[in-house]
């Protein structure tokens, strides 16, 4: 394992993050505050509580997951897509490094950015609502795994995308609907039985539910199934990246 190469890619990507602190940190915080205003203040006054948790607090884990998914995908896909677009990908391909090192550098940095943003959102939320954190270590583990998993898939998206439209396609058409229908703003148990069953086909529900459990100790689905779903998701992403670097698909002619 070539740690120096990994660290070089990782530091380069993190430097980009710190160079534009406003875009990197302030934007996700502002949009979270907006969600608070719209869903928490406007709708929350009508719902009051879900399973004895104030609605404002209830939506926080979902908001964090929502942002983490979007940021992980966007950061990782942009990082590799920009290199393809500008042409600096050649440097990565010509370097004496393995795919694991490339992925570790890019995906690691994208995941860490998401984790930082998630923590900032959490701290922002504390200013608005009372927020318990029942299982902080597990919360962090789930957060890191989710960030890493979606950064991995974002990396794949960046390799797959041939143009900017394709780069936007999956976040817009797949991720956003899954997140909004994934119980970020409501509990699946609030749905009629049929729609509750449908909702349970949505993998994002398992993420949101598992993450919410680490805050409040209650969940729509067993926590173990959340962890399992996440592990499968991560494993598939890793296999796909491995296959891509092995065959050179859309990277090496």
């Amino acid at each position: 394992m070539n740690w120096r190469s990994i660290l070089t890619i990782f530091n380069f990507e993190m430097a980009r993050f710190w160079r534009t602190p406003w875009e990197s940190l302030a934007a996700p915080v502002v949009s979270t505050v907006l969600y608070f205003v719209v869903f928490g203040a406007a709708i929350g006054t009508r719902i009051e509580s879900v399973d004895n948790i104030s609605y404002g607090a209830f939506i926080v884990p979902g908001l964090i997951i929502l942002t983490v998914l979007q940021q992980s995908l966007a950061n990782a896909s942009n990082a590799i897509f920009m290199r393809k677009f500008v042409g600096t990908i050649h440097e990565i391909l010509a370097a004496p490094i393995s795919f694991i090192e490339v992925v570790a550098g890019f995906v690691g940095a994208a995941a860490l950015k998401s984790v930082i943003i998630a923590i900032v959102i959490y701290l922002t939320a504390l200013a608005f609502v009372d927020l318990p954190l029942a299982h902080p270590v597990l919360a962090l583990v789930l957060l890191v795994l989710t960030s890493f998993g979606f950064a991995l898939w974002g990396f794949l998206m960046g390799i797959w995308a041939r143009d900017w439209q394709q780069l936007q396609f999956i976040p817009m058409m797949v991720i956003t609907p899954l997140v909004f229908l994934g119980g970020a703003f409501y509990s699946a148990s609030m749905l009629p039985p049929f729609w509750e069953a449908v909702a349970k086909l949505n993998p994002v529900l398992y993420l949101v539910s598992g993450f919410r459990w680490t805050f409040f100790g209650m969940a729509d689905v067993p926590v173990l199934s959340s962890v399992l779903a996440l592990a499968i998701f991560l494993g598939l992403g890793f296999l796909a990246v491995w296959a891509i670097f092995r065959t050179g698909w859309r990277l090496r002619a």
Partner: protein
Amino acid sequence: MSPIIEVSDLSKTYASGTPALKGVTLDIREGEILALLGPNGAGKTTFISILCGLVTPTGGQVRVGGHDLLRDYRAARSLIGLVPQEIALEFFESVINTVRFSRGLYGKAPDDAYLERVLRALSLWDKRDAKLRELSGGMKRRVLIAKALSHGPRILFLDEPTAGVDVNLRREMWEVVRGLKAEGVTIILTTHYLEEAEEMADRVGIIDKGRLLLVRDKADLMHEFGQKVLRVELAAPLAELPSALSGLELSPDGLTVSYRYDTHADRSGIARLLGTFAAEGIGVRDVATEQSSLEDVFLRLVRDLA
């Protein structure tokens, strides 16, 4: 001395079915400058891209410093630096950072003293903190060279290093390349400026339609295929050549007669020719000879061998 790069029967057919390389075999000697010449689309860039790990070959084998390029890619690639044809840079980075990044990517420990030497040699040291987008095109090209050199490669590939570069900068680049050769770096450059190959190369390889037509020492090539032209300036214009001089060329103004001869022939025929001038009573003011350039050689080869 064993070659630093051994290429045997290398071929590449792209997914579209286009055959770009058809069985190229070539040994590259340590410390030489090899120029690969060929028209656009001949396969030069494909060849370089395979050797640098950007394109996967469909057949054949490459060994770099004794290491198999695919199986032992870490050892093989760490010997190589690539200066790509297109200017591709992170435009918001500073010069020094992008060069440090390249070095780190190759897993080398930071060594700012070494990078300073590289940047100074390329006249980039004063610009080390400048953002890449602020640099002129020529400087960007030099940054690409600095990046390629940042990990101290033993082999440097330059893919059309002077395409679209003005005359001064081209000469500057040649100086840089000569300096690298003096340090023992093996240099492979592609070009379609024949002047460049003629100026720089120890050996010249000619690629056309995916085949390596020949590789020869430049001097041998020029010698072997070289023709000389004798130009005879006349004291007074001629309306037409006398029959004894038929087969020669008379310039439109009637003042110069050109005679082509092969430098390998036992007799050049010059003495006989000048004798004929005297016998015909044609006054000669001056005589000059010209060596045919690599360009002439190249055009003849591509025509004859293709």
